[in-house]
């Protein structure tokens, strides 16, 4: 009971802090910077969710944009196409703006997550038979299949995309609250997972599948769970994107997006949650802030990636995490080293 109370208190505390930060940032950042911050939040969710599949469970999936697309499109389809019909037939649901909008968004989140999770199962099943580069090709292929299917559904605009999605996540502090609330959720889930025996089984599957099996771990179930949870979060990231930017089109969710998300996970250090978050920020914000370099922008950006991977082949953090203890250790050692002649 006390444990539950403590948990609830922690969650409420985090939400309150998030609300305060949202207010401060939306009031003080200029519109363009704020936009980049929101993009960073979406990217962080995508990277951390792929990290569950790719980093923690070791299933080399690289078609994450497919799940992102599934969530964005199904969530937006609910809001634009289905929600009005439902409301027309159920007068009880004709609620005022704040309550009604929140409810609509919550349902969009649920259907977006569910759609992406189903796609995750479909893509996850081959992972039971394939590994490494073979799995990578299959996941990338499935991601493209999802995009091509969307491209051919006229109801959601086909190649033109789907526009006029209401900004249900709001534009200012509310948007920040929703998007970074999602980031907190995926990070909390990853962290809790890593601390439990059940989470250890996910790592065990990455480390040595045969040994995991010999410990009594149902490796099939672990892999499918990782795909389901990871894809569901990517789906919710898609819902956020759609209801913030108000329009989506299939080319947002192409192979290049898949590759960028994979790069975030690898660059951050496969398996490291904090690493993938930081890499998501760097890979999203840097190209924006390098805009003043004009044509050289992508050259510099790519060069930086190559340099990081050459100097830190394990990614920025390897398998490790950022923690205060480690920072202290690092700076402690620096200081001690500096004192020597």
């Amino acid at each position, binding site marked *: 009971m006390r444990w539950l109370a403590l948990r609830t208190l922690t969650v409420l505390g985090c939400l309150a802090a998030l609300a305060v930060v949202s207010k401060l940032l939306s009031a003080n950042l200029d519109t363009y910077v704020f936009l980049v911050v929101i993009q960073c939040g979406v990217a962080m969710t995508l990277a951390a969710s792929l990290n569950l599949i790719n980093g923690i469970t070791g299933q080399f999936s690289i078609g994450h944009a497919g799940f992102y697309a599934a969530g964005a499109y199904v969530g937006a389809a609910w809001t634009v196409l289905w929600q009005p019909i439902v409301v027309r037939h159920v007068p009880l649901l004709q609620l005022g703006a704040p309550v009604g909008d929140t409810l609509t968004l919550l349902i969009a989140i649920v259907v977006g997550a569910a759609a992406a999770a189903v796609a995750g199962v479909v893509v996850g099943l081959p992972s039971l038979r394939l590994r490494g580069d073979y799995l990578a090709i299959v996941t990338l292929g499935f991601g493209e299949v999802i995009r091509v299917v969307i491209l051919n559904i006229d109801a959601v605009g086909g190649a033109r995309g789907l526009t006029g999605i209401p900004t249900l996540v709001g534009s200012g502090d509310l948007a920040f609250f929703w998007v970074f609330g999602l980031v907190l959720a995926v990070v909390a889930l990853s962290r809790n997972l890593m601390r439990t*025996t059940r989470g250890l089984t996910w790592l065990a599957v990455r480390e040595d599948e*045969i040994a995991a*099996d*010999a*410990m009594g771990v149902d490796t099939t179930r672990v892999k499918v769970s990782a795909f389901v949870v990871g894809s569901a979060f990517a789906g919710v990231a898609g819902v956020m994107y759609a209801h913030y930017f108000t329009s989506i089109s299939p080319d947002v969710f192409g192979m290049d997006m898949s590759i960028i998300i994979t790069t975030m996970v690898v660059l951050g250090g496969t398996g490291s949650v904090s690493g993938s978050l930081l890499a998501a920020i760097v890979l999203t914000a840097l190209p924006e802030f390098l805009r003043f370099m004009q044509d050289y922008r992508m050259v510099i950006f790519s060069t930086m990636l190559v340099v990081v991977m050459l100097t830190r082949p394990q990614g920025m953090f390897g398998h490790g995490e950022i923690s205060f203890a480690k920072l202290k250790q690092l700076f402690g050692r620096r200081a001690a080293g500096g004192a020597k002649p």
Partner: protein
Amino acid sequence: MLALRSVSVRYGAIEALSQVDLEVNQGEIVTLIGANGAGKSTTIRAICGQVPTSSGSIHFEGREITRTPAHRLVHAGIAQSPEGRRIFANMTVRENLELGAFIHHGKHEQIRQDIDRVFQLFPRLSERVNQSAGTLSGGEQQMLAMGRSLMARPKLLLRDEPSLGLAPFLVQQIFQIIREINKEGVTILLVEQNAYQALRVAHRAYVLGTGSIVVSDTAERLLANEQVQAAYLGE
């Protein structure tokens, strides 16, 4: 307790096991010896459902377990230490042991006791409890693999070449511990190339030629058997 009835296994065109009959009774240490490539590991894999049998059946405590996947067998009471140490190299010693107790997760008190017990058997591991397992020496990794398989509290323990690549004094120690574990009531099926040592701890033994059982007898009699001496005990 464990019974294999004319079990055959094929890898494509090769028949790696043919018509193997093998029995392990409650409380015994049974060893399966044989030259490299004889099919010892294949036998373990067949018991654990990691390779499909092409004919025959396997029973454990009267229930058929032919082709049952390894992770389900752990719940039934069969723990397996696969060939090679196969420890989780990037995890700590403690995490490896906790994973060994995966089927008991949530029983914190039991797990704590069992970890203490493993450290009693292998004091070297207790000094390295928070060290990542990949940094352990070969002998320590073998100890960890052994300790980890005990964490499941198995009724039957399958060990594939626990002495592989170990210095002679460590081999002695591993076999000593196998005997100790057995005295505590764990039945053991021990696969070994080191026939001499294996026969000294075991009660009964099976000698595997290429894919089929050549002789089976008490370990004592096999140690004295001239043919076995010539073929497997060197000199």
